[in-house]
């Protein structure tokens, strides 16, 4: 037993000097038997994954082709759900427009503003203050997201809200309104919440990239008398292009998936003014029990996100 296991790992794992031919000689069954404990270690993980991840994922794909209201037997309708989504469901089509607006803003603000903040922190001479600002950027991440959302709901509140109080303070009483209750402003209120739009996580990713730039390069720009803006544009931006791409892709995916905020702030309302696809799926499934139809929205989001992920891996993959 003991000697056998010594062997396993001598020939195993990450070692590079393993004589390949010796391993090839063993039959598959022998090797599987030799590493039986490795499989044992995977059993609990895969048991849980099978039940709670693989099975639901498969069912989600499968049921999107069914008309299935809770309590009734599922009825296969082929692509019927998708046809209905794109031809008849006006709310869904509107939600696609809404989510596009949300995502565009998320990408714009998510890529640029944290970059500026990261540059400012990176260029501080004092290491201690660099560290302090980094921690301060992360601190809001720790506050439960729901608290942040509910606070923004309060800021937009029609009677007691901070935004209306500020408008009154600068003499713009006529602009006051219930920002989330007005169909014309609700979507934009939800889109632009979170001012000043600094995501601490993104700042950290940028900073990690900036710190990867060789000190020599930065020093030589100083010797050559290059201005800070010029350095940022010609040195920093190209060198952290990997991070920029990553954050862009993450922002697109986050934007398409991000419906929890809207669920809390407006629940898609008033009416369907701020509806997004994820929330429309939730409503169909859990308010109206149309499980099959809702699954097809889930399927649509999955295909969309999958497509973006593959596009990313194929065309913009970066060395991170």
């Amino acid at each position: 037993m003991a000697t056998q296991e010594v062997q396993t790992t001598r020939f195993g794992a990450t070692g590079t000097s393993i004589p390949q031919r010796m391993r090839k000689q063993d039959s598959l069954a022998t090797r599987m038997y030799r590493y039986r404990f490795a499989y044992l270690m995977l059993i609990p993980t895969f048991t849980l994954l099978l039940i709670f991840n693989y099975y639901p994922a498969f069912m989600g794909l499968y049921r999107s082709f069914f008309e299935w209201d809770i309590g009734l037997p599922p009825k296969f309708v082929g692509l019927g759900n998708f046809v209905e989504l794109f031809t008849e469901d006006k709310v869904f089509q509107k939600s696609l427009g809404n989510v596009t607006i949300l995502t565009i803003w998320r990408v714009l603000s998510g890529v640029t503003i944290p970059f500026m903040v990261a540059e400012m922190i990176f260029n501080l001479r004092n290491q201690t203050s660099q560290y302090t600002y980094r921690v301060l950027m992360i601190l809001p991440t720790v506050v439960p997201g729901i608290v942040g959302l509910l606070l923004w709901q309060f800021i937009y509140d029609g009677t007691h809200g901070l935004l209306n109080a500020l408008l009154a303070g600068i003499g713009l009483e006529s602009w006051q309104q219930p920002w989330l209750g007005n169909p014309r402003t609700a979507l934009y209120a939800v889109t632009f919440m979170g001012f000043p739009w600094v995501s601490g996580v993104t700042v950290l990713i940028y900073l990690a990239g900036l710190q990867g730039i060789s000190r020599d390069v930065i020093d030589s720009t100083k010797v050559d008398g290059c201005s800070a803006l010029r350095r940022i544009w010609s040195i920093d931006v190209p060198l952290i292009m990997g991070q920029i791409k990553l954050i862009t892709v993450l922002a697109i995916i986050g934007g398409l998936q991000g419906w929890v905020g809207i669920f809390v702030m407006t629940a898609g309302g008033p009416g369907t003014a701020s509806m997004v696809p994820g929330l429309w799926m939730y409503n169909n499934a859990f308010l109206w029990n149309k499980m099959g139809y809702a699954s097809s929205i889930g399927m649509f989001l999955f295909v969309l996100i999958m497509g973006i992920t593959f596009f990313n891996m194929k065309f913009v993959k970066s060395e991170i």
Partner: protein
Amino acid sequence: MTYAKIDQQPVVISRQGLGYSLSRLWQTGDWSRYLLLSTIVFLMFLPFLIMFVISFKSMPQFNRNPFLPTFPFYPENYTDAWRIVSKYIFNSIIVSGSSVIFTVALAALAAWSFARYPFPGREFFFYMVIALLMIPGELTLIPSFLLVKALGLLNTHLVLILPYIAGGQVFAIFIMRSFFQSMPEEMFEAARMDGANELQTFLRIGLPLSQSILGVVAVMHILSTWNDLIWPIVTLSSQNLMTLTIGLYAFRTAWYSIWGPLMAGYVLASIPLVILFAFTSKLFVEGLSSGAIKM
């Protein structure tokens, strides 16, 4: 994979006087950066500041002067809020606490297996796990709900804990595996020479050396389960089982426009993770910068 190295460069301790540092601050242009950064930090924290201020106001105080501090403080808001929020906090601690223990344990086992043993099918199984990172929650939400309903788990804490363990493992395995792979094999070989078996090399050598990565994974898992809203909303309906996020959501609906206790509740809800952050800020910084490498 890159982690943010916090102390990459040695800290230079300035031995010059205050006048010198001030003039240097001016010459280097750092003052403008400090000014801008401080403004941004102030704006980022403004909602939380206001939350804190309002949480100490009684109703009449709020109506007179909603946003600036008023005296005397009105701490009774906190007693009111605590009566409601405390059980939600307690529930969240149970759910996040028990799921984080099992997640880290199971993921460490699996990651160890993936990292150190070239068993047949290793690549296949690993990609099976990683593929799950690409599946959005929207696809699985409805089938998962129907599954736990069929299993009779609705309205128990297990309905949160089990899927959290299952789902949390995926990212944890991904992170831990690359860490375990970077450990030198010689170390474990030496242990085997001394008579340690496979389990002992893992428990006595592998795990103690990976404390930091286990910490990062644990902190990330707590953060994501603590913040989850949709899954508890669809699976829990009993007030006594609600976790913090949906508890606050229900609290907001019930106490709408009674801002003092509401804000006090938000403050109380934020405290547990802020305490955790105070002790593990380094793990947070590392984890959050690695968290984005998900893809």
